[in-house]
């Protein structure tokens, strides 16, 4: 019996939070306690609430204990994500306990948490709850104001949870870099079977949310900091592979298509990296991407082109005016163009189709034009997921991924540049824009980042001529600007 128990797989409770169960290898430890730490606004409460919400929808009742927020605020916040908690409360699948303490409470002598335990015992019996979230436990802990009492009571709470086989989440605010706070929670971290940390990193262009599993007693787990988003209908974690997230050694250079482009990029793109070309409509994103495509095909490398904006015929035809003839590459079987309407399928279907094509065609490079169209797969979140998963998939296989993203200009520019929030895995970022100069609208190119290279940081003139793209004033004149063309000109 004991031996059997020991070798048994740890039971897990599926959170049904998008992508989370994958990085947790199944879900939260069932009947055990998980600690979620994070600074203010990192999404701890939403995380706990979504665990209960998705569970309740699947028929598993849960209790949410709010030590900081009013129950009405919890319901209102949930509604912004489209979650109707009131309906679940009425159905007896969810109970929200507002446990905010009266700030005028006077402490006189020793006390314990028996009342709280009696309440949750009563409530959990009433609705048959097996899931429970203590949100902002740090607020309760402040009340103890005595380290020994605090440990004793949190220990009693933990014992109660174990005795009742509750799958529990405790959330605590952890101020980063505050050693006082950390030592305070060390005890909680030791006690909990699973510890998750939520972070909000200010990025170059937009801040990125990340989730990291610090500990998972008795189970393996993904060890990276996984990017996640909270919109529009809940948390979505991108379970992209270890390999894709670790900034592995950069591949060798690969020409961006012309010598001038390569000069500005200090050698071109890197093989197996993710490149994002951002710009408003008409700035030349597709032309720049296809400049890269033709050069690659000229070298005999295979390219898969995923077009979400126009038909193959329209795209190939349009490229003739800047002098980029893709027909020979298509005929030679080096370029495969696949066009799809984003709204035709959900994210999963698009991904499956794309991955299958990549597997069959085995391209050296993949071009996606444009990720801005992904939103039409359903939501910004669907778009984010598609882009992240595709980028992860390509990175794992050493495939260069060139994506374009259409920006609307103005205020939304920076958001678009960040590329749906996927900036954390983008290696090179090129911005094309129109700038008014001497009364004329001119195209300009700026390399915002190119990992591991000493790229230019200036705006460059970017011209689209009938024989390709030109960056006047950059190194070699046109005509000899395709270093990788081999004798077929």
């Amino acid at each position, binding site marked *: 019996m004991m031996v059997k128990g020991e070798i048994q797989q740890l039971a897990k409770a599926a959170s049904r939070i998008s992508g989370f169960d994958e990085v947790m290898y199944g879900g939260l430890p069932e009947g055990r306690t998980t600690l979620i730490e994070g600074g203010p606004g990192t999404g701890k409460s939403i995380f706990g609430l979504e665990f209960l919400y998705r569970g309740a929808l699947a028929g598993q009742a849960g209790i949410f204990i709010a030590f900081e927020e009013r129950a009405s605020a919890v319901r209102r916040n949930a509604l912004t994500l489209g979650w109707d908690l009131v309906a679940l409360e009425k159905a007896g699948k969810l109970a929200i306990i507002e446990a905010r*303490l009266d700030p005028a409470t*006077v402490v006189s002598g*020793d*006390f*314990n*948490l*028996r*009342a*709280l335990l009696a309440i949750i015992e009563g409530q959990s019996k009433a609705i048959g709850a097996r899931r429970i979230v203590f949100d902002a436990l740090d607020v309760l802990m402040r009340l103890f104001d005595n380290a020994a009492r605090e440990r004793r009571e949190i220990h009693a709470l933990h014992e109660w949870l174990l005795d009742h086989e509750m799958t529990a989440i405790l959330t605590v605010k952890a101020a980063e870099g505050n050693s006082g706070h950390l030592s305070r929670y060390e005890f909680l971290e030791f006690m909990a079977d699973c510890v998750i940390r939520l972070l909000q990193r200010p990025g170059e262009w937009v801040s990125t949310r990340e989730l990291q599993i610090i500990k998972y007693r008795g189970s393996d787990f993904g060890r990276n900091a996984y990017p996640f988003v909270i919109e529009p209908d809940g948390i979505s974690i991108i379970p992209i592979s270890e390999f894709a997230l670790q900034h592995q050694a950069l591949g060798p250079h690969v020409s961006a298509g012309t010598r001038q482009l390569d000069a500005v990029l200090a050698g071109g793109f890197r093989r197996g990296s993710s490149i994002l070309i951002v710009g408003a409509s008409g700035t030349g994103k597709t032309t720049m991407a296809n400049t890269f495509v033709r050069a690659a095909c000229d070298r005999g490398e295979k390219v898969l082109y995923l077009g979400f904006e126009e038909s193959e015929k329209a795209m190939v035809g349009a490229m003739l005016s800047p002098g980029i003839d893709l027909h020979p590459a298509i005929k030679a079987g080096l370029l495969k163009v696949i066009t799809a309407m984003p709204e035709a399928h959900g994210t999963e279907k698009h991904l499956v189709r794309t991955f299958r094509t990549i597997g069959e065609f085995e391209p050296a490079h993949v071009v996606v034009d444009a990720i801005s169209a992904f939103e039409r797969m359903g939501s910004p979140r669907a778009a984010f997921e598609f882009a992240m998963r595709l980028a992860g998939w390509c990175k794992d296989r050493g495939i260069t991924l060139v994506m374009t993203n259409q920006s609307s200009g103005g205020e939304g520019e920076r958001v678009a540049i960040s590329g749906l929030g996927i900036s954390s895995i983008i290696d090179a970022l090129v911005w094309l824009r129109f700038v008014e100069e001497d009364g004329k609208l001119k195209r300009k190119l700026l390399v915002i980042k190119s990992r591991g290279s000493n790229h230019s940081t200036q705006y460059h003139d970017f011209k689209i001529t009938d024989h390709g793209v030109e960056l006047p004033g950059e190194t070699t004149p046109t005509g000899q600007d395709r270093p990788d063309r081999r004798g077929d000109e």
Partner: protein
Amino acid sequence: MNRTENGTPEMQKEQVYLLRLYIAAGEQNSKLARDNLDRICQEYLNGRCNIEEVDVLTDFESALADRVFVTPTLILVTPEPRVTVIGNLGDKERVMLALRLGGKYGS
């Protein structure tokens, strides 16, 4: 010194204190709280208190309604304003102060 003579005469002479004491039956701190509260009532209120005792182990709904999460918890229901004191009431000065019963800090 009779502390009941401090404060306003009406309050001291006519006001009956309605107190609700949340306890967990059988617990040492709860017993202490009850004893300490009884003593305060006798000594400073001449027994003019109405103590309602609630055992959270049998009546969690009341605890929930009063937002009581620790035991023992004492709530001064009337006279208003309402006051919450948690703990075994071992620190008499603090309890007196909270219940506006004068003491060394006066009321």
